[in-house]
């Protein structure tokens, strides 16, 4: 769409004295093409030279209307008047166009509409507008593009195959070093050409085009191609939001300058540059100076629905450091656990400082400030928890390649494949399971049973001043090993305990996220916002905030005391399947079905990193405990490691053969555990993987990576379960690995 506007801007300048703001969204490819009014060639000549009033064909009239609307949108009222007077257009025509506007315009317009007569065009607009379920957001933009796209230059449909095979021949003849890069063009070009043929109702040509060239594409695009093959009519395209987004967003390619020059020269020599048009309209070519990339480098980074990430997208500063731990003094004597431990309590003699606290008062330059986002203050119970945490961490086993953790596997029996989500509390005392029958069950892992708080009547009767009031408020009669929570009306796909063990969150296919109290085991709040299944949810490590991601392609940040989300992270092209907080709670990582991972800043909702490289929807994400690295697992069975600070991929762990559903770093980040549908848990040496990373300037600026093929060395162990896919992993505070899954005979 932006390319079309750019083209229009060119034609504007020919006849207007005012200068339009030229759209600077387009990449180099567009700027290189200033001289050509690409998309408006048939119709643009008419208004540009028009001093006479005769407006010939209906096509030209449409162009005029589009131009008028564009001018009006940019507040160029004088030119509107002049143009209308000269072209002799009546007032009424413009308004009809405006009435059809709705937010779905880009979706409907992105194809190349045939220049038909006005009524056919309008009917098409209304048909496509009413078909898509979107609230009407009055916006002129879609109207213009609807009409403008009618003038996307179309070649003769039967020649598409010819153009494509010409390009194929050309690319096969270039130098080896350029060939890999230029081959990147094939897939987006193929998809867009096919979609244009379908959109313009050339069904047979589309089918033959598909049959002829779909086999040439890379293997990792197989699923997308299959979806494409099922679309043979324009009506099929309408309901598919992902495809619409694909058409409107630009597919990003990263090509070196030399290769790009070759391609451009070749395409511009030709008479019919339909391909060039498509490239300009739908592709964004991110040019870099330097050596062309090799095939393996390209393969490592490609695979997502929108191509790779622009280099600019990964340039902003990310504060990946950890927040400073609050100073809590450990008491020397253990009996004083319940007493408050504040700094400077004179009664304690020489209390130990906590080993995890920051000894240095200096601020880590990579860490966010404490007040960057508002965080809840620590309550007494939180301080007690922290003390427990520190005590346990002193007893923690330091893992390594020689010291592997023991793995304790919790199998859910008789779940009939209904287990859809699992979570452990941080101190590993409770397990929660979300099921396809819409229940949530909580079990106690320790011998201590689950108890509800007494009813209001009984609470009156207890002695409130007693020391063990916390025990007395619990109702012994309700003690049980597990509790069942009813409330959702659809399978529960995401589940998360709060760090203070007061609350449990569950997200479900019914579009709501429920907050349950773990003291009364009842539901407290239902957060409604997604109207579509919510695939994942997680509490922030500091409590109070939580995030959720769902089928509506956005992730939302909520706080427990607001019934509406605080932030909406929009940008993915397909469902958000996995959402994780960074350890410092300032950033959120989302993995999606469009095969990208995005890192969002909580403060302003901006996307600060885009990571491409997976070849399937991402189902597992894990941040390293030091906050610098991110590990991700997808349906392609690979675990990819990313350096957040530099924004590049630093490792690839191959080994699993099926979807990876769970990833977890050990408590000090020495090991990475991954669990997958192939019934195995694998342990990887993450210290070594992150160890000798030389990120030189070239890599940092261009994002080119040289991945070592050391998956085998990094694999420390493979542990197979008895036909139980592993859907959750958790390291206890002492570095014992817990795994959970449903037994699936």
């Amino acid at each position, binding site marked *: 769409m932006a390319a079309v506007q750019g083209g229009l801007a060119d034609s504007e300048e020919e006849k207007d004295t005012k200068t339009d703001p030229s759209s600077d969204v387009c990449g180099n490819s567009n700027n290189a093409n200033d001289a050509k009014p690409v998309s408006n060639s048939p119709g643009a000549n008419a208004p540009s030279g028009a001093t006479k009033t005769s407006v010939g064909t209906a096509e030209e009239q449409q162009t005029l209307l589009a131009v008028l609307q564009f001018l009006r949108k940019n507040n160029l009222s004088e030119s509107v008047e002049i143009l209308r007077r000269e072209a002799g257009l009546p007032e009424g025509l413009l308004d009809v166009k405006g009435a059809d506007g709705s937010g779905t315009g880009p979706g409907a317009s992105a194809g190349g509409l045939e220049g038909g007569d006005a009524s056919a065009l309008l009917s098409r607009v209304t048909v496509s507008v*009413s078909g898509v379920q979107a609230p009407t957001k009055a916006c002129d933009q879609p109207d213009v593009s609807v009409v403008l796209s009618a003038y996307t230059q179309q070649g003769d449909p039967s020649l598409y195959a010819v153009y494509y095979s010409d390009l194929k021949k050309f690319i096969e003849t270039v130098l080896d070093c350029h060939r890999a890069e230029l081959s990147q063009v094939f897939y987006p070009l193929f998809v867009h050409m096919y979609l244009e043929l379908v959109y313009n109702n050339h069904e047979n040509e589309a089918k033959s085009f598909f049959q002829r060239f779909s086999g040439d594409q890379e293997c990792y695009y197989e699923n997308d191609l*299959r979806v494409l093959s099922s679309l043979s009519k324009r009506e099929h395209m309408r309901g598919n*939001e992902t495809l619409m987004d694909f058409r409107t967003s630009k597919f990003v390619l990263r090509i070196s300058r030399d290769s790009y020059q070759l391609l451009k020269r070749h395409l511009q020599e030709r008479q019919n540059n339909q391909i060039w048009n498509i490239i300009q309209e739908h592709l964004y070519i991110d040019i870099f100076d330097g050596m062309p990339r090799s095939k393996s480098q390209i393969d490592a980074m490609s695979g997502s629905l929108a191509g790779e990430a622009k280099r600019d997208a990964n340039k902003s500063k990310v504060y990946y450091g950890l927040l400073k731990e609050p100073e809590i003094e450990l008491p020397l004597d253990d009996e004083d656990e319940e007493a408050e431990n504040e700094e400077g309590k004179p009664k304690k003699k020489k209390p130990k400082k906590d080993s995890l606290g920051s000894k240095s008062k200096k601020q880590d330059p990579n860490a966010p400030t404490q007040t960057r986002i508002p965080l809840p203050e620590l309550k007494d119970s939180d301080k007690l928890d922290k003390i427990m945490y520190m005590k346990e961490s002193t007893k923690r086993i330091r893992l390594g390649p020689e010291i592997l953790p023991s793995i304790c596997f919790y199998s859910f029996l008789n779940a009939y494949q209904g287990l859809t989500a699992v979570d452990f509390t941080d101190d590993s005392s409770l397990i929660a399971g979300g099921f396809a029958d819409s229940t949530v069950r909580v079990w106690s892992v320790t011998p201590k049973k689950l108890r509800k708080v007494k*009813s209001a009547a009984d609470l009156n009767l207890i002695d409130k001043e007693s020391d063990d009031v916390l025990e007395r408020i619990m109702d012994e009669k309700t003690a049980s090993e597990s509790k069942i929570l009813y409330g959702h009306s659809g399978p529960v796909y995401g589940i998360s305990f709060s760090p203070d063990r*007061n609350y449990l969150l569950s997200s479900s296919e019914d579009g709501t996220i429920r907050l349950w109290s773990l003291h009364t085991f*009842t539901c*407290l709040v239902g957060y409604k916002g997604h109207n579509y299944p919510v695939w994942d949810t997680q509490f922030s490590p500091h409590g109070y905030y939580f995030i959720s991601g769902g089928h509506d392609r956005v992730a939302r940040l909520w706080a427990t005391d607001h019934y509406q989300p605080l*932030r*909406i992270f*929009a940008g993915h092209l397909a469902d958000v399947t996995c959402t994780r907080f960074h350890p410092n709670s300032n950033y959120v990582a989302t993995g999606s079905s469009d095969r990208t991972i995005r890192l969002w800043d909580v403060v302003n909702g901006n996307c600060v990193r885009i990571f491409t490289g997976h070849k399937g929807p991402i189902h597992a994400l894990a941040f390293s405990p030091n906050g610098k690295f991110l590990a991700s697992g997808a349906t392609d069975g690979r675990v990819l490691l990313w350096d957040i600070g530099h924004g590049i991929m630093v490792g690839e762990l191959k080994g699993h053969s099926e979807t990876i559903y769970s990833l977890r770093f050990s408590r000090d980040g020495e090991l990475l555990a991954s669990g997958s549908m192939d019934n195995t848990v694998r342990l990887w040496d993450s210290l070594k993987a992150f160890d000798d990373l030389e990120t030189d300037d070239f890599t940092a600026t261009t994002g080119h990576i040289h991945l070592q093929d050391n998956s085998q060395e990094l694999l420390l162990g493979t542990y197979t379960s008895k036909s139980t896919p592993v859907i959750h992993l958790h390291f206890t505070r002492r570095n014992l690995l817990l795994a959970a899954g449903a037994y699936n005979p």
Partner: protein
Amino acid sequence: MSAPKTIPKDAQVMMQILKDMGITEYEPRVINQMLEFTYRYVTTIIEDAKIYSTHAKKSTVDADDIKLAIQCRMDQSFTSPPPRDFLLEVARQKNQTPLPLIKPYTGPRLPPDRYCLTAPNYRLKTVQKKVLPSAGRISVPRLSVGAVSSRPSTPTQGSSGVSVSKVPVPVSLASQRFTVQIPSAQSHAPKSATPPVLMSSSLIGQKTLLMSSSLSQSESLKRKHEDEDDYDAL
């Protein structure tokens, strides 16, 4: 796979469709489920189309009617999420407001009660004093057994005199909240109102009971559930 001869033709078609879409592993019952869905969908569409065609006073159902029926059904049941630009616009607006500051410790951080699911969804029927069953004592305005009477701040309730008309609290609701109005004949507390009793909520994650007693002159022992407004003041 069982012998092809015994599988009806529709099921074979469905299996072929699944194969074409690249789905190779599925339970056998999936075919039945898909066939049921197909049948229901197609009949719904055709019925709708029939209605449209009679409305248009046509004698037969033609392609336009079917198209219209499909479109209307799609808007109704197979909605798709909003388009990307709309989401980006909404997100932009939402993300402009800064994150709200967190008030210092105020109890469980939950939205206003209107948005919570913690209100009781039942009401207890008021009981007339004289009509009580012979279940025991009449609603006598006095301290009941079990009260720790040394604490004047602990109101009690005469629990035996009230009949509950509905089954209390389904599991999904939270704590019961109700007020107990203790008539004036209370022997211990001449105070007009005792402060609400609240357990140290730092250790309990939810709002527990709120008992308030007032010296009303009413004679019957009434149990009313509290208005939600009272809780916001907490």
